[in-house]
């Protein structure tokens, strides 16, 4: 990282931390407003919140303020320490995800060589927080929800990783910056105008990734951990106030982050055809943002449309369909990689 002004290590670190800390609530609010409040409402032939701010734009800010003002309630028989820590752990995993997502040639907190690996690893940390929340709440619904979440994570972490393997093989690197560069510099059958977004060659991987991400984020049709008609609110049942806000922010922050990883892996990340050099540092966040919204649109579209699967059906989808498909995808990618 080379900035025009050389900053001390602690200064750059502070800036990075503040940026990431700022990005999470903004991402959560944007996704929450655009999809949860507005897209869902309009799909359901209603307006959604309209009062706070123009067209209800400030509704989530108001909600956030409301949550912060609320009393911090601990259930009587909960494990107070674990109960209090759980939302922080969940939010932490979201926070860590943002570290490796590149928003421009130089706009990345840390370009790790094993960026993909890191991202998928920390995204599954959240289940630790979920288990903590479920266990410490002293509530049976919470416990069932948490155990479902753990089962779901084990099932869907595999297809998620396997779907990405094809991309990694094609790009020849695990660094997310490297993957973006491979897409921007690649060409499809000698046509280099668009670059080579991996969605064209890895569309199977993209489909599997989307489905597995849906499950990873516990969104319908894979929302058994929170299944509100069965488990009230699953592992979040006992949470109120700002601790609930943490879960909420983490849910939408993670949705944003996983969409960003999907956009980076399959849609070319911050790269826009024809824009390169330092200009890409300016357009990068915008381009990435647009692609994130596209991916997130699919995630939330599914969420508002489908009923949820049953726990055993969910496992069946993962083990019987997604994993074999992604393994076959890896095989085909490998064969083609060797041939061409």
């Amino acid at each position, binding site marked *: 990282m080379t900035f025009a002004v050389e900053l001390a290590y602690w200064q750059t670190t502070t800036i990075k931390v503040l940026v990431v800390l700022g990005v999470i609530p903004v991402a959560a609010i944007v996704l929450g407003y655009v999809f949860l409040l507005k897209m869902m409402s309009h799909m359901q032939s209603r307006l959604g919140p309209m009062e706070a701010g123009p067209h209800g734009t400030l509704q989530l800010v108001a909600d956030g303020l409301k949550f912060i003002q609320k009393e911090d309630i601990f259930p009587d028989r909960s494990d107070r320490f674990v109960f209090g820590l759980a939302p922080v752990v969940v939010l932490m995993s979201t926070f860590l995800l943002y570290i490796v997502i590149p928003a421009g040639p130089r706009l990345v907190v840390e370009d790790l060589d094993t960026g993909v690996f890191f991202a998928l690893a920390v995204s599954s940390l959240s289940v630790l927080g979920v288990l903590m929340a479920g266990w410490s709440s002293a509530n049976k619904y919470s416990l069932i929800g948490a155990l479902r979440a753990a089962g779901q994570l084990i099932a869907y972490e595999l297809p998620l990783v396997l779907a990405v393997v094809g991309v990694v093989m094609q790009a020849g690197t695990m660094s997310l910056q490297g993957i973006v560069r491979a897409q921007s510099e690649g060409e499809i059958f000698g046509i280099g105008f668009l670059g080579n977004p991996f969605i064209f060659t890895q569309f199977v991987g993209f489909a599997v990734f989307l489905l597995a991400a849906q499950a990873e984020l516990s969104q319908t049709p894979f929302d058994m951990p929170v299944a509100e008609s069965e488990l*009230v609110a699953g592992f979040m049942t006992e949470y109120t106030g700002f601790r609930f806000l943490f879960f909420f922010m983490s849910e939408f922050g993670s949705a944003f982050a996983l969409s960003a990883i999907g956009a980076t892996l399959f849609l070319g990340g911050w790269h826009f055809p024809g824009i390169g050099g330092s200009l890409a540092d300016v357009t990068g966040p915008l381009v990435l943002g647009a692609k994130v919204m596209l991916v997130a649109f699919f995630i939330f579209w599914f969420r508002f449309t489908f009923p949820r699967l049953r726990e055993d059906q969910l496992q069946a989808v993962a083990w019987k369909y997604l994993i074999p498909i992604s393994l076959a995808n890896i095989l085909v990618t490998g064969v083609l990689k060797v041939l061409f």
Partner: protein
Amino acid sequence: MTLTTERQQSAYVSSQAADARVNIELETEGMTLNIGPQHPATHGTLRIVVRLDGEQVLWAEPVCGYMHRGYEKLCEVRTYPQVTTLVNRIDWLGHFANEVPFILAAEKLMEIEAPERAQWLRTVFFEMARIANVSLFLGDMGVQLGALTPVFYAFRDREYVLNLMEAVTGGRFHPNFDRIGGLKEDLPKGWVAEAKRVMTRVQSFCDQMEDLLMGNEIFDRRCRGIGVIPASVGLEYGMSGANIRASGVDWDLRRDEDSPLAWKHCDWKVWTHADGDAFARYWVRLQETREAAKIVVQLLDGLPSGPIQAKVPRIIKVPAGEAWAHTENPLGEMGYYVVSKGGLGPFRVKIRSASFNNISVIPWVLRGVFVPDVITILASLYFILGDIDR
């Protein structure tokens, strides 16, 4: 065996648990889960105590009475016209349909028959109550299975039906419109045309639900083969209405009873389904909503003119006697056994509500299913809490 104290009751319940556990190969310590009284899936205050082994239900025991209002007792201290106000609130989504069988019972005792137009209008409102009731189920089933959107369509299109009811009766939920010997008022101007338009909407709503929910793969997988109730078991438990027709019993009081209401003048069909599972119950109710809309349109087309109220004494006294009247309500068979001793009010009213019997099958049907299926089965049996607790 009588169990009077709380302690005896809990001892009984745990002995049942022990029985259920004998047959399990690998015995682990189970968990007792209270679904309800405040739970999103019980839409009301029904409580179902389930004993779980993992996510599998070993046994289930519904606990009702959280909203028991003692209508049978209250009816005894009211006059006949006042009773309709109470019974409106039994199945609160099928408002008007609750009043009809009671009024029919009273008319039977008084040997009064309402004029033709009143009977036709009663049937129209009855079927509208059915649409208002069942359309909510059609959407709500989606919510119980995790699909959020359909229920909003249900609320949207149900609103038109409620508006129609409001235009005639002044009440959206509790019309209190049926009178001994007829109806309170005639239709307002322009209502018939509007009602026909709304029925077209209802038909398209049904198509939408078929498209959106019933045609969905996941919905299919969640409902097919879940909560299968054979006809003989269902009948033994007194299940009625769409629930029993979904088990293949071709029995509909609208067709099979010689009711003074106007169903016999319409061309419509009783739908049954052979499977007896949650999907069949949804399917049958969807077809019934379509039939109801068809009935309403046909009745409005042929609506006879004339008075809407027979000549009745100003102060209604019902001659001594006993009468049983029942109709095919949105939730199933609803009947009133009215005992009169010649006074201003009934001596005894036994209210036979559909959900009470429909729900009593729960301990039988929930044994061995998974927690998500508990919700599917509860949703597909479709009960209204007021109809259980009365």
